């Protein structure tokens, strides 16, 4: 690359207005691109971080989620006494036999009904999920009709204040606390005593069993123990993180595919903008190109200089777009996860790979937009170019 970078750079600076407009187009598309990826990633993060590496979850084989899974009490009793499970300070296995159902509540803002996950837990549950922390009120007491509510639900649904009563199943439930769970899916759930919820919903069976392993390497042995015992072999054992990754796949893929499709269509516009700008740049600088060639610069140096110019354009546009997208990290969204049909809160999550992908995307647009104009510049005949003077 013999023609100095400053030539490309200052040429961009000289035509500030067109440069700025082209930049704006590129930045906008990169913004949308990055935001879509951040959103899809945010959904994954919210769900995946719900799970922990130390935990394993047992649901019924061939069930896609807890919602349709059934684990009989007998089987649950055998699973929770397996030796691979960690023991708490009280010497009891750290396990939670749970029930998981959906209920309907009215949203604060729109008054629409929304699905909410209700999880009945057993006393071991809090040890399995150290990320769960009460933000207001207190923990519910087992053996009572008390419940606690995830803060994402408390914020968005009516009648979720502490002291208020919610009716679901066949009973009324008293709210005694709100809890946070580091932005994970638990924040979008209602928790209470599983032994109270089951009769109320008329369900004699659990949905799932979650256990904390003595150490994560014991997973294989735990899985084998469950799946080989004829009394528990209907159970499917997964690492908790893996389970939640699967739960996020449907929605994050949907967002990603739809979003990227929209971005792709936008990007055609931005590339056309870059093409027009760069063709205009070549046309306005014909004499300069002829002069450079006369001085002894080769065609490929001219090609390079114009490609550098459009790449610079796209790098700046890309940086602006990513910068704007980074601001979206502060935005949180709550909507129905159609993987589980229940309310899920999540944010736009930036990651190094999203930044890389966005820059690659930006530079690709720049190179495509700059390619034909640059080739045109390189193909110019010296004499015809000089004659433009």
């Amino acid at each position, binding site marked *: 690359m013999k023609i100095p970078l400053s*030539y490309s750079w200052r*040429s961009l600076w000289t035509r500030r207005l067109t440069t700025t407009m082209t930049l704006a187009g590129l930045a906008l598309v990169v913004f949308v691109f990055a935001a879509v990826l951040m959103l899809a990633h945010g959904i994954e993060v919210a769900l995946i971080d719900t799970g922990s590496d130390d935990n394993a979850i047992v649901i019924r084989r061939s069930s896609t989620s807890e919602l349709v899974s059934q684990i009989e009490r007998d089987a649950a009793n055998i699973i929770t006494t397996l030796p691979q499970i960690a023991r708490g300070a009280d010497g009891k296995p750290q396990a939670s036999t749970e029930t998981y159902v959906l209920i309907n509540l009215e949203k604060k803002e729109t008054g629409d009904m929304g699905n909410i996950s209700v999880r009945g837990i057993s006393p071991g549950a809090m040890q399995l999920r150290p990320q769960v922390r009460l933000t207001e009120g207190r923990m519910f007491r087992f053996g009572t009709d008390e419940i606690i509510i995830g803060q994402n639900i408390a914020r968005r649904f009516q009648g979720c204040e502490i002291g208020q009563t919610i009716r679901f199943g066949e009973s009324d439930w008293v709210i005694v606390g709100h809890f946070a769970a580091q932005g994970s899916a638990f924040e979008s759930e209602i928790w209470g005593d599983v032994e109270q919820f089951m009769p109320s919903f008329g369900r004699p069976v659990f949905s799932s069993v979650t256990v904390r392993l003595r150490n994560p390497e014991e997973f294989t042995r735990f899985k084998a123990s469950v799946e080989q015992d004829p009394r528990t072999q209907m159970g499917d054992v997964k690492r908790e993180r893996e389970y939640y990754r699967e739960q996020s796949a449907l929605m994050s893929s949907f967002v990603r595919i739809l979003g990227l499709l929209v971005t792709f269509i936008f990007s055609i516009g931005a590339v056309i903008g870059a093409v027009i700008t760069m063709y205009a740049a070549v046309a306005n600088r014909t004499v300069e190109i002829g002069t450079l060639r006369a001085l002894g610069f080769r065609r490929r140096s001219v090609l390079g200089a114009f490609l550098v110019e459009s790449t610079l354009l796209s790098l700046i546009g890309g940086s602006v777009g990513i910068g704007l997208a980074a601001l979206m990290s502060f935005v949180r969204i709550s909507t129905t996860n159609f993987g589980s049909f229940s309310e899920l809160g999540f944010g736009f999550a930036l990651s190094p790979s999203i930044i890389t992908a966005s820059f690659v995307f930006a530079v690709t647009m720049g190179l495509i937009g700059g390619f034909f104009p640059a080739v045109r510049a390189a193909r110019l005949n010296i*004499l015809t170019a000089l004659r433009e*003077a």
Partner: protein
Amino acid sequence: MGESIGRPMVEVRNVSKSYHRDSIEIPVLQQINIAVPEGEFLALMGPSGSGKTTLLNLIAGIDRPTSGEVIVQGTNIGQLNESALARWRASHIGFVFQFYNLLPVLTAFDNVELPLLLTNLSKSERRNRVELALKLVGLADRMAHYPKQLSGGQEQRVAIARAIVTDPTLLVADEPTGDLDKVSAGEIMDLLDRLNKEFRKTIVMVTHDPRAAEKAHTVTHLEKGELA
């Protein structure tokens, strides 16, 4: 004067040039023979359209003859392929254009440095050369100025600095005073004269201006593509 030692610096042998516009052939030069000895200051004159620029371009290696040969310092430049010819131009030819052809986005310094970017010189060597060339044309104090901030005469002097910075064999100038007022034109001609006398630069210059031609040792006239 211009004594030649052995071969002339530039030999134009039986050169004809025609352009094609659609299917019509337009003859521009016919059977031109010129020898330019080393140290010569040659002025090419003639009416508009007589082929002066075309001949100059052939000598400078930015165009190729339809027939005949152009030999510069023993190299038949018609036989070089495109990139070899580009390299040859970079090291042998200094260009001075009627409209200066400076790159508007680069400073005087950067403009003069351009041809040196095609050499292997280090950054500090380049800096020394650029400063020397700009000092020679009397613009050492204008290095950081952009072309827009200079007068026409000053722009042409920067262009001359760019033409001589690589210490080329041959300077070619196409109407170097064509766009300048009388005073600036005089300064440019004095500068070319000095480059010829003091630095022994061989110069081929196209001009319409009889006063400019006075500085040349030899004046050759072209008339409808033939030497008159």
